[in-house]
């Protein structure tokens, strides 16, 4: 191996060690990039850096990040989720696990409006966990359902993960949004099937709402409430996604309409105030800047890694693998799954994915399909202990009788369902590729 290849390995190892020690991700990326870039090349390599940074901070496409974050944080203030869940519990009637299905439904709707995993898990955890426990639900399955449906936001468009992946894979945001609709709904459906079966096998784990309480609410009034509660978020989702997928507005423009719509929804719910607005703007600024700071620092890392010909290193690694493209895809999937135990989606999508992408591009793999396999797989990274963010978030807001063990035990079947999801998308690529083709992207 050449000295440069050793430096490229040093870059990866140094990065990983600092990351594990607890240095913030962005600083780790930039620091390891600078050190190894200098060792390999000296100063000349980084003359390109300002132009790359400018390309991140003055980029029309990245405007979608603050806009979607703004929309999500704002909608969180309208307490939509709370009302939705109650209505779904009534709608489910005597079905066991009805309120758990409600969590999944709320997860899908919130995922389609916000795309911020942390916000969804926290909201679901705060609003639904105490209610379900009071209703006699089994803590483990409830925690599992909350974490799993809270993370649906990262695959159901609009989502930050898809926006970043569209940049990495050089696809349009609209294509990936369209491609992710069916896999996202498929995951939600898998969760629902599992919950219904579980409720059937273990009836006491998920009792329905008591008959008396259901009788107290007349049918007509229930449907009126359904309309009142579900209409604003549904309209917002349809407006945003419809205009993107239908090609009326670019994703960034649709995001601005969604953000404006979210202000209206909160205003109509009479929860808009200067304090709320200030809080939303500050949270939006912190989250968006945090994500874009990582992108800025990733520029340093990628300059150094490319300069040191790290890509050839990865190609050599793949040359050792037997079995052609399929085996290589499974290798990447296994790697992302394992990395998901330790790293978060931002790190995985900006480090692991770009390393392997040139190989799959050269092999003629459909980038949209590959992006969907990655996205479904990435969702496990939110859920697998010890670093699953969704688990931390839920832990932070769960009542004291919930133990970490409940959460870990509850999440296992849902992680298995996600692996099943990856397998399904792999053997039936049409799940990912049909919708973008059908609407002509």
């Amino acid at each position, binding site marked *: 191996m050449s000295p440069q290849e050793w430096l490229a390995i040093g870059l990866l190892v140094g990065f990983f060690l600092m990351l594990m020690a607890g240095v913030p*991700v962005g600083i780790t990326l930039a*620091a390891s990039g600078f050190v190894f870039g200098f060792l390999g090349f000296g100063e000349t390599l980084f003359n390109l850096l300002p132009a790359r940074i400018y390309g991140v901070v003055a980029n029309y496409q990245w405007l979608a990040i603050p806009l979607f974050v703004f929309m999500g944080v704002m909608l969180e203030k309208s307490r939509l989720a709370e009302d939705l869940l109650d209505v779904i519990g009534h709608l489910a009637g005597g079905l066991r696990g009805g309120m758990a299905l409600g969590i999944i439904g709320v997860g899908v709707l919130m995922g389609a409006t916000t795309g911020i995993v942390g916000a969804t898990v926290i909201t679901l955890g705060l609003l639904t966990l105490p209610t379900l426990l009071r209703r006699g639900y089994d803590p483990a399955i409830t925690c599992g359902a909350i974490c799993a449906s809270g993370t649906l936001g990262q695959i159901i468009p609009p989502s930050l993960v898809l926006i970043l992946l569209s940049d990495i894979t050089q696809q349009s945001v609209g294509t990936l949004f369209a491609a992710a609709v069916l896999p996202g709904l498929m995951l939600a459906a898998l969760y629902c099937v599992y919950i219904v079966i579980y409720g059937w096998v273990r009836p006491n784990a998920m009792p329905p709402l008591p008959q008396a309480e259901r009788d107290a609410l007349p049918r007509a009034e229930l449907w009126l409430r359904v309309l009142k509660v579900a209409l604003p978020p549904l309209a917002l989702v349809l407006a945003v996604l419809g205009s993107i997928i239908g090609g009326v507005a670019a994703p960034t423009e649709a995001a601005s309409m969604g953000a404006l719509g979210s202000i209206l929804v909160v205003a109509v719910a009479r929860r808009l105030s200067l304090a709320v607005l200030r809080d939303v703007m*500050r949270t939006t600024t912190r989250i968006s*800047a945090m994500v874009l700071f990582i992108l800025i620092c990733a520029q340093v890392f990628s300059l150094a890694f490319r300069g040191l010909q790290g890509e050839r290193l990865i190609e050599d690694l793949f040359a050792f693998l037997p079995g052609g493209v399929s085996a290589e895809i499974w290798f990447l999937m296994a790697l992302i799954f394992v990395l998901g135990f330790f790293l978060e989606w931002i790190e995985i999508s900006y480090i692991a994915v770009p390393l392997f992408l040139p190989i799959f591009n050269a092999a003629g793999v459909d980038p949209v399909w590959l992006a969907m396999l990655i996205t479904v797989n990435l969702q496990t990274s939110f859920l697998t202990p010890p670093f699953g963010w969704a688990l931390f978030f839920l832990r932070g807001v769960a009542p004291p009788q919930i133990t970490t063990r409940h959460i870990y035990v509850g999440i296992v079947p849902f992680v298995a369902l996600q692996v099943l999801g990856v397998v399904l998308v792999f053997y039936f690529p049409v799940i990912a590729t049909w919708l973008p083709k059908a609407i002509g992207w």
Partner: protein
Amino acid sequence: MTPTYAAARWAARIDRAVERVGHAASWLSLVIVVLMAVNVLLRYAFSVGSVWSQELEWHLLAPLVLAGMTYALQQGEHVRVDVFYAKYSARGKAAIDLLAGVLAVAIAVLVIRYSLAYVNQSYAINEISSDPGGLTHRWLLKALIPLGFTFFGLQAAAQCVGAAWRLTNSPSR
């Protein structure tokens, strides 16, 4: 006044300034939402639009991000892998924070160093938007990069002071 005391006061002052700038910059998020929504609505409803107002959209992203990243640093928002970090003693945490702070200052210095020439070049040729009717004074936008990282470096230095104090003043276990 001891040097330690002076450093602590200086750090606290930077910390407050950063918070204030962050709060001010956060209004940009609302401005972006409204500006973009108005641009879209005007275009679809009345077919009215201008290049400069569309360019202004992403011109506002740069100050939001470059001021926001320092605000996020001050608020402890930047993500890290905390599975080991959470178990460190107070001193261990302080040591990692100090390392992260020193690295952040170094990164800021390097980015400023490289970007000054970049800004100068833009200023020298009086760079403007390549689209007719676009915004001028492109160097001002580019100058936000070294400016933003100066700010970032100062906040990181202030946090180094805090971390160093915790490192020397907390019990080892």
